[in-house]
């Protein structure tokens, strides 16, 4: 019964939190949020999109960690529930990744998955 009480969320990990805070400060829009969406497309059928948004729109769900907010529209949330956003820096690239428990297959380009 414990499971029933836990609301699934989109979790902002420490790495992503730090990076988002920095980017928001650089952009001089500390009140803006990150809109994450899932669209058809990509080689595995569905793909992620991320862009800045000033405020949540319509029925967007809002996930917050100490002032850093993520907006997800309800349709995309179907595919994103329980995901965690991480920020990765390697020698050759830096960027975000979504660890998505709903994804059955991820593709090489990382932008796309299937449920």
């Amino acid at each position, binding site marked *: *019964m414990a499971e029933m009480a836990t609301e699934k969320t989109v979790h902002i990990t420490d790495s992503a939190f730090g990076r988002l805070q920095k980017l928001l400060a650089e952009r001089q829009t500390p009140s803006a949020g990150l809109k994450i969406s899932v669209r058809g497309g*990509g080689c595995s059928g569905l793909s992620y999109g991320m862009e800045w948004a000033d405020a949540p729109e319509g029925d967007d769900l809002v996930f917050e960690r100490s002032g850093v907010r993520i907006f997800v529209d309800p349709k995309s949330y179907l595919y994103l529930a329980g995901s965690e956003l991480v920020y990765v820096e390697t020698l050759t690239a*830096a960027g975000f990744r979504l660890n998505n428990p709903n994804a059955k297959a991820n593709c090489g380009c990382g932008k796309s998955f299937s449920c």
Partner: protein
Amino acid sequence: MSGLLQIRDPQKPLPPAPAIGVDLGTTHSLVAVVTQGKPSCLVVDEDNSQVLPSVVHYSANGSVVVGKYAKQLAFQFPEDTLASVKRFMGKSRSEFEAKRLASYRLAPGEGPLAFQVSGGPAVTPLEVSAEILRALKQRAHAALSSKITQAVISVPAYFDNAQRQATQDAGRLAGLEVLRLINEPTAAALAYGLQSKKQGCFAVFDLGGGTFDISILKLTEGIFEVKATAGDSALGGDDFDLSIACALLEKWNIENPTPLQRQALLSAARQLKEQLSQETSVDICFEEHSATVVRDDLKQWIEPFFKRINFACKRALKDAGLAEGEIQEVVLVGGSTRMPEVQHWVEKIFGKPGLWEVDPEKVVALGAAIQAHLLCGTHDAEVLLLDVIPLSLGLETMGGMTEKLLPRNSTIPARATQTFTTFKDGQSGMEIHVVQGERESAKDCRSLAKFHLKGIPPMAAGLARVEVRFAVDANGLLSVEAQELGTGIQQEVAIQPSHGLSEETIERMIKASIVHAQEDIFSRLLIEQQIEARRVLAELHKQMKAHADLLSAEEATSLWEASKQLEALLETTQEAAKLRQAVLALDNQAKGFVERIMNHSIQSVLQGHSMTEF
């Protein structure tokens, strides 16, 4: 390492959406785009592959799979997995060749040619092509991170009006604005013309999976003109596979192979063919049979195709008024030109080996991308592209003869006008039958459209003057107008494309696909909430039974009532949001109970242990 997501800033302007070039091939398809002045192919399938197998699988639950996964499913579901569908584009039922190894189920009844697949209604070749284009569009979108709306799609030079129309409609159905249909050899020429800047006469020898095209091109001062085209729209690597498979069937005395055996054997034949391009001898095993095949066997099996290829090449040369010796280079296009035997044929026909400076499998897509780039407007170099119509266009005249208005290999866009008259005294109407082909008898040509010009004023035979105007646009698509000059009566000509889908049907299909997309999302949301509600209810009832001692009578009644309400709502509501609220409310109501169960469980675990043990 790619694979990482970047955040897009809506305050910064988007890069302009590029127009893509699509090589919609019989066996595989590619998409290319020009970035920073250079064309390149995009990754469109698993394993970072730039080649998407033109295979579409329709599964029982209604979902559609395109590409490599679909190809893998062909073994298991040979009847629901459609390959090489380009062969059937714009063809009517009567033209459908019941090939010995084609395992598809033709949908029964009249109407356009369609295949029966599981998980939905029968699909037309046009719709299957649209699925491939849609997949290419979406994957190009993902690869470029920018919205794709415009495309140039390549077609074999030999495609007739109906086949071109079907290709263009497939593009529209996939949500693409088709800027231009480009002949495959012309696209290859464009890729070469720009990249190597050569002058003179060239042949483009394109042997792909399903079609053979030979084109004679003339390049002068950066302008190139297609002088002649010839070919065979039913000859390619698929036919080689078929020949090999048939030869093996014969060799092993297998009669009436099952669909599964056919697919497996065709795939084995293809593998054998590809291996023989690298090695001189290959061992093949199939079920309990085995054989060793050498290059000479393969040569013998595919030898009949050489005659057809040679004939087409000779005809194209004759049309262009050139001798073999005047061809400076032969450009090889298509995966089948990788076969040593085919390269040998080229040398035999043209007296010189073929070129493959640009990857023969990608050259068409790259050329189409260059064309798309040019049509988008933001280009520096002006390239004038002249193309030709592949088959003569004309009218049926009295006695069933053909009157050619536009002869084969006319450069397009093209126009032609001819005046006809009445045959009988007082004749008030005239049937206009538009045909395409080289035959003198109209019934041997392909019928494109038939319409009736009405309202001709009664007069003596031979006095009425009906002007018929043919116009072929830059895509090679034909429109026909007829006008009675005495009265000015003009007939609105609705050319019904022979693939059987009218404009309205296509509009309807496009609209339906949008409407259904929304429905699909809503039904998915609802189903997911229903599943969640059932899960919560089952869990609650289970826990209420197991831990009845942790509930007061009052609590039990109210929880029971609440769960009854949710059950009732589950049966009646179609709104996912309502259901979700009800689930959350019940969840909330059960919170105290849940906490007590948790505490109870922890205590029972702790019982009998001292804290130091932990």
